[in-house]
């Protein structure tokens, strides 16, 4: 099943990346953090502060690259990403709890 998130007016140099989550595939841009784009695609992600300090939206990053426009206050475990403030920079695969 492929879900395509509605991106808001994609600009010309706006890069689109694939996010794999189990059997789902979601297309995301570098315009916004991952959390909001997953939500738009109908995927429920745990969250609380939405500004990088509570670590509730920590998700496993199996492979691929994300970056943070500002360094989050929360500790990000290696192999995880913080969805509320992570910008996806390549195709990635993510997973929730096993």
């Amino acid at each position: 099943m492929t879900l395509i998130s509605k991106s808001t007016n994609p600009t010309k140099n706006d890069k689109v990346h694939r996010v794999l989550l189990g059997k789902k595939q979601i297309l995301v841009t570098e315009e916004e953090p991952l959390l909001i784009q997953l939500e738009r695609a109908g995927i429920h992600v745990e969250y609380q502060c939405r500004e990088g300090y509570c670590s509730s939206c920590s998700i496993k990053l199996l492979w691929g690259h994300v970056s943070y426009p500002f360094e989050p206050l929360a500790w990000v475990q290696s192999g995880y990403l913080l969805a509320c403030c992570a910008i996806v920079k390549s195709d990635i695969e993510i997973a929730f709890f096993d």
Partner: protein
Amino acid sequence: MSYSTFNRKHFDSMKEPMFFGENVNVARYDQQKHPIFEKLIEKQLSFFWRPEEVDLSTDRKDFQRLEEHEQHIFLSNLKYQTLLDSVQGRSPNVALLPIVSLPELETWIETWSFSETIHSRSYTHIIRNIVNDPTKIFDDIVTNEEITKRADSVSIYYDRLIEMVNLYNTMGMGTFNVPGKGDIEISMPKLKKALYLTIASVNVLEAIRFYVSFACSFAFAERTLMEGNAKIIKLIARDEALHLTGTQHMLNLMASGKDDPEMAEIAAECQDEVRQIFIEAAEQEKEWATYLFKDGSMIGLNAQILGQYVEYITNVRMQAVGLETCFATKHNPIPWINAWLVSDNVQVAPQEAEISSYLVGQTDNNLDDSDFDDFDL
């Protein structure tokens, strides 16, 4: 080694571990070994709020209209939260300040504890507003068996660490006989283990123990009941989320060995015990949910759903400190709670943030020559 409020030794605080190094002397923040704690202080200060800002006049009427079993749920949660913040308003200071070795961490501990005292004051504000005799409620906190059971588990690690540090500061290393308690061995590994377990139990307190009561407060507010209370709880939840990041950083820094190599060994050795602290707290919280709903549930919540939420949130918190999750619940059974827990819609009046006259000591730097036109000497 005895504690000194102003250590006269010359040492480089950038080379000290977080705890059990030199006592802090100069409170300086121009250089920091772990800048994260300075950032947490700044964030916490930006969150500053006062309970009296929240109007609770409708809550009084709402409370009188609640059914008896709902009043029991509401008051029991308030009592439990009062207990938790009574402990948290003092214990980080009493237990951790005598052993901390970094100025930024020392100040974070003080800032953290201070914000808990605001929470305690807000419970008094709420209780005074809804009942005529607050004494009945406060007295029950030390006699109610369900609450005192929890008091034991939240204070045991703190108390043990404080006792050991007292012995260490007066007697130094060795084995000492304490009347009524038998022989207590004081050595650096034992002290560090007591510290690590204390931080883990505080993490559990702030990451899990508060959340059953948060869920109930927000479930009332979903029915437009006790909304003033929910506003206060929202502010408390925002603070607690930041505090738990503080203890997650301490635990992760310790486990990584970057701060103190010996601490990494202790963290590895304690892993099972820490898992057990998480699991035990989750089980106690599930029991608490059963106690809350013993005379009846409330719309949108019952003991079973709340129990699943406890399991879910425990999994989330365990993952954040690098532990394997241990409960089967992988989905949030009450996803609506996140809309209440989110802090980006905590209201700030625009004038507070933008108009300089609302800010204490604020100056306006945008001046040009025309501002002096009506100025005569």
